[in-house]
């Protein structure tokens, strides 16, 4: 942490080196920006005026204590929040400059550009492994061949192909927990989204499965912008380029992960990451 590089005439000063700079964006799409986002459950003001950007080609983690609004905020990005009775959202959610909350936008189409993986793996029990992966594709009228190709690609992309290639016709629920979650990731990837939202994707998994998925996230970030909600700070530290800390519905601090975990600006962030509360 204290490498001394003698270059200037002044006594040296140096910030902790950020070893993980976000890669220059290889893709021009997949940039998400929240502007003044508010979310409500009836009269409960769960997200309070959050403005935050998610860079394409990078992983952003959202951390914060239970009930801070991080899951709610993320569910506003793919407009799943409004599915709940009495829930509503205000503000702007921009995907490559387009406001997803514009009245002309088709909600269903939003969700094909912004995919989601949930806390508990939820493959469809009545479908085979392969049908699960292609379930999102069937409705776009893709041809059989195209579905086969994209399904296979998605399984490869999720690091699952080798493990399931001999039992594609078997039930989706017949896989282990970690495999099921990767199946859900493949299913989400198959529709080729620009953004992938992950809501505590590893909470229900054992440590080995968790690490496999973290590695997968590292590989996937080049093709999809990834936003991961996690209550596991070490996980955020391991996978994310940028980390945002939320408290009571507000965005307290956002910055390079290295900085947030070695020298955060806000005292509340410091208290939370060192475990003084939460």
């Amino acid at each position, binding site marked *: 942490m204290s490498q001394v590089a003698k270059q200037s*005439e*002044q006594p040296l000063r140096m910030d902790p080196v950020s070893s993980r700079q976000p890669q220059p964006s290889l893709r021009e799409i997949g940039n998400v920006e929240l502007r003044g986002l508010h979310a409500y459950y009836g009269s409960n003001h769960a997200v309070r005026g959050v403005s935050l950007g998610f860079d394409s080609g990078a992983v952003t983690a959202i951390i914060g204590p239970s009930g801070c609004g991080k899951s709610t905020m993320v569910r506003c990005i793919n407009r799943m929040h409004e599915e709940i009775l009495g829930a509503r959202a205000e503000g702007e959610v921009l995907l490559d400059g387009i406001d997803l909350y514009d009245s002309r936008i088709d909600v269903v189409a939003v969700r094909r550009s912004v995919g989601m993986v949930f806390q508990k793996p939820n493959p469809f029990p009545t479908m085979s492994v392969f049908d699960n992966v292609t379930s999102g594709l069937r409705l776009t009228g893709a041809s059989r061949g195209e579905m086969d190709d994209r399904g296979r690609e998605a399984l490869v992309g999720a690091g699952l192909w080798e493990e399931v290639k001999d039992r594609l016709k078997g039930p989706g629920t017949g896989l282990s927990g970690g495999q099921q979650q990767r199946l859900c990731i493949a299913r989400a990837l198959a529709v080729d989204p620009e953004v992938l939202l992950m809501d505590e994707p590893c909470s229900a998994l054992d440590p080995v499965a968790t690490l496999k998925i973290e590695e997968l996230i590292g590989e996937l970030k080049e093709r999809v912008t990834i936003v991961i909600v996690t209550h596991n700070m070490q996980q955020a530290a391991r996978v994310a380029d940028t980390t945002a800390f939320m408290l009571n519905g507000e965005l307290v601090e956002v910055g390079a992960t290295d900085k947030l975990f070695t020298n955060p600006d806000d005292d509340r962030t410091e*208290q939370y990451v060192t475990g*003084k*509360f*939460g």
Partner: protein
Amino acid sequence: MSPETRTQYQEELDRLEASGLGGLDLVSAALQRTLEAVEHQDVELAQLVVADDDRIDGRYLEVHQSLITLLATQSPVATDLRLISALLHVLKNVERMGDQCVNICKMIPLSGNEPPADEEMVRLILTMGRQTRTLIGQAKRAFEGRDVEMAQDLVRQDDVVDNLNRECFRLALEIGDDADKREWAMTMLLAARAIERIGDNAVDIGEQVAFVVTGLFREFEDASHPSA
């Protein structure tokens, strides 16, 4: 924000900090005895200091090991992480300081049991030693209080020691042609140099204070960039 969570961890961290900084007290005591041994050419006292250095080394090992364990088991971040990093550096400084005292004490039989060849040089060295003890005390207080200003002031205090060291050097040059005297002067210079190194270590501890507080590592003063 309730401090109820992680109390055991916090207590352990506090204990290790106290223990690590306690090493500075051991060093200060060792330095005092070293100065006495130099003043009175007391060989027995010098040997005591050398033997006692084991305590300082033991302290280093024990606290070092516990800090590593804490790193492995508690995943410290932010200020806690910087504190642990700083303590690891401080421990090293403490250990080095202890070794310098030992170096001085090992020289004492060599400089013979006759009365010192130059009273002034001896006085200078004793003054350096006292000033350095002040430095050590200030470094400890600066760390405990996370006082960056006090830590930066260590540079000024250390300058005094450095100037005295230069004085010693000048005196040694003018000591004359007597071979025994010259040998004695050389040995004294080595002692002075060791004390000066102890002072530098104290300044290093001050830099660690700044790191813990600001998250930035800045060399207050480096050998290659003299402030004067």
